[in-house]
């Protein structure tokens, strides 16, 4: 007989935001059929309404910390914060899409359903407690994005960007599952806390000479490669500029924040919950330790992420300097920002090794809560700022996709003073100037990296931030100090785009001035992750 759990045992209510959004999406698909072609704005309104409801439903997640559905789903402050980031990002994206889709002739009601599918994929990713769920959620977030990138039939660039994104995304997925299979082979389970327990052994003791270890190392490396593709980290970034340039601008905007949030959520879940005890290089210190002595070593993936983060920050920022198309410049800037977040991920995990007796060590995973908070707050700040920047780029973009070059920003302060002022503020936030949200994110990340002893990486971070000022300030200079070659109106500057820009501006300003708003929400996240493990 099948043993059917009751609804209470399934604990479905903690997954309510995701379930609601997924259900709404399928209903929206049907409702949209009855909305006449010239009134698709209704679909957009319904979408925004649903996202707001999901936002409200998500608020209790910040003090839940419970698992659901056979331990596959977990609702904690981390998940709640990821949900908050992606829902906010999606609301701004819908506001951006309404008029853009209409004027470029690709207005489909299904667009909003696809967007919501992708959003629910990211939400399940943030709550995933099992490798299978991470994988399926990764696909659910990616597949609608492939479609949305290729949406402009009339534009060859858009279709090319779709095919390129698809091929590299599918390639990365194959790497992810191969890595996941190796982790499964080493531990015999796909559940992330179970993987942790299998590595830690029954009493928290790890066999240092374990043949399964090499499986885990290769598996973790493949997972990092795959998620590195998703977040556009060097050297897995090669799709980013072309895809960002070719895709419809609202899609690019969502891709730059949504896929990144999802990728980082998956990376943090797998690494922090599943593989924190993965250590390959014990160093010489372990040999000479006295009994009872404790040393701290980095997790195996910390070293790998260190290198990737450094390469990503340097490459992204330096290539961005030479770009003349602002959409492309923002793509390289998006690569660079992935580097800063990777720096926080690298700073999260260290392992304390204690020598109990001769040839007998215990290992404890230590989480730098500040680094976890830094990564999440940075993602939030980046979401507001980058969506705002894309909103302004979109206002200047012509119907045929032109109008996004640097020179098109000349004299914007005279034509549209308010938009220019907000754009300047977004640029300052991307650099990380105080009073902006970007500053708070960068400050938390650099602080966490210093605490974790990643001094050289922090120096690289600060120096590349200074380099980035060059190409961000250049836009401000163009807007304020140069004269416009053209005087025609910005076609994209419609009320909805203005709302989006103002929402993004408000978010960037508010979290810049009152960072405690975000940090209070996160106060319990690190503690929750730690208690769930032990």
């Amino acid at each position, binding site marked *: 007989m*099948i*043993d*059917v*759990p009751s609804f209470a*045992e*399934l604990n479905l209510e903690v*997954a309510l935001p995701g379930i609601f959004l*997924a259900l709404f*999406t*399928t209903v929206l*698909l049907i409702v949209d059929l009855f909305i006449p072609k010239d009134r698709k704005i209704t679909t957009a309104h319904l979408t925004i309404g649903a996202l707001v409801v999901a936002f409200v439903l998500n608020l209790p997640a910040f003090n839940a910390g419970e698992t*659901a*559905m*056979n331990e*596959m*789903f977990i609702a904690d402050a981390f998940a709640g914060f990821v949900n908050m980031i992606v829902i906010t990002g999606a609301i701004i994206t819908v506001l951006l899409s309404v008029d853009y889709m209409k004027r470029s*002739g690709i207005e*489909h009601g*299904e*667009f909003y*359903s*696809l967007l919501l*599918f*992708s959003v*629910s*994929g990211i939400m*399940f990713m943030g709550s995933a407690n*099992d490798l*299978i*769920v991470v994988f*399926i*959620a990764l*696909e*659910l977030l990616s*597949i*609608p994005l*492939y*479609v949305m990138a*290729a*949406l402009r*039939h009339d534009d060859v660039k858009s279709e090319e960007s*779709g095919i390129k994104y698809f091929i590299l995304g599918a390639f990365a997925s194959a790497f992810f599952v191969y890595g996941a299979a*190796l982790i499964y082979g080493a531990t015999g389970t796909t559940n992330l806390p179970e993987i942790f327990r299998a590595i830690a052994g029954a009493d928290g003791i790890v066999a240092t000479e374990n*043949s399964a270890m*090499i*499986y885990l*190392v*290769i598996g973790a490396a493949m997972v990092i490669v795959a998620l590195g593709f998703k977040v556009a980290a060097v050297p897995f970034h090669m799709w980013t500029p072309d895809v960002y340039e070719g895709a419809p601008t609202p899609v690019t905007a969502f891709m730059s924040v949504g896929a990144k949030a999802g990728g980082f959520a998956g990376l943090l879940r797998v690494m922090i919950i599943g593989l924190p005890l993965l250590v390959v290089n014990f160093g010489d210190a372990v040999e000479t330790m006295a009994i009872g002595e404790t040393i701290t070593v980095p997790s195996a993936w910390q070293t790998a992420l260190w290198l990737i983060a450094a390469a990503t920050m340097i490459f992204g920022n330096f290539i961005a300097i030479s770009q003349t198309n602002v959409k492309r410049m923002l793509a390289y800037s998006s690569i660079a920002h992935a580097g800063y977040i990777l720096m926080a991920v690298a700073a999260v995990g260290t392992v304390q090794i204690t020598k109990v007796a001769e040839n007998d060590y215990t290992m404890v995973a230590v989480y730098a809560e500040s680094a976890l908070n830094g990564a999440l707050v940075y993602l939030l700040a980046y979401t507001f700022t980058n969506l705002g920047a894309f909103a302004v780029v979109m206002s200047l973009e012509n119907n045929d996709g032109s109008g996004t070059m640097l020179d098109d920003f000349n004299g914007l302060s005279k034509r549209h003073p308010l938009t220019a002022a907000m754009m300047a503020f977004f640029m300052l936030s991307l650099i990380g100037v105080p009073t902006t949200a970007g500053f708070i994110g960068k400050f938390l990340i650099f602080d966490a990296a210093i605490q974790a002893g990643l001094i050289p990486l922090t120096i690289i971070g600060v120096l590349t931030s200074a380099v980035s000022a060059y190409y961000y300030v250049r836009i401000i200079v163009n807007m304020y100090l140069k004269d416009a070659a053209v005087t025609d109106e910005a076609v994209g500057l419609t009320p909805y785009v203005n709302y989006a820009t103002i929402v993004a501006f408000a978010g960037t300003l508010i979290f810049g001035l009152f960072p405690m708003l975000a940090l209070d929400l996160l106060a319990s996240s690190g503690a929750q992750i730690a208690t769930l493990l032990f």
Partner: protein
Amino acid sequence: MTFGDFTPEAFAFGFFTILTLGGAFGVVGSRNLVRSAVWLMVSLFGIAGFFVLLSAPFLAAVQVLVYIGAIGILITFAIMLTRSMTNLKERFNKQWWLAALAALTAFLLLMVTVIVPTWGEMGAEEIPPTVASTAQLGEAFFSGWGYVLPLEVASLLLTAAMIGAIVIAREDD
């Protein structure tokens, strides 16, 4: 197992290996894409054989019905619809030797790190003789004590893929 005792199982394994890897080489090496598609089906059939050897008959059936039957036919249709691609002048891009080098390195790396540690381990004696039944697999998918969340998310994924394919492929009216 040693290579000395040549059991029917070892024979079957060898046969399916030839199908799988031979088919795979056919897929990446064929000039004509229709041939590639047929080789793909051969390779997938070999993998279905592996599933039988590994006591996973349900997956073997799914492999034949869904993979060979549905995905294979889908790919063949796509090739037919884009007819001029069936006879390609150039199979490989200019970096094919670089890709070959990378693939060979990756294979050696996997052999050294993943395969050799398990060499000799898990011989015939250590394998559990019985396995979970297909009924247990079904229960695990649908009972709520198993994979109910991934199952639901997977159903969303299929819906999203279907909608996405329609949105992309339909002519604008």
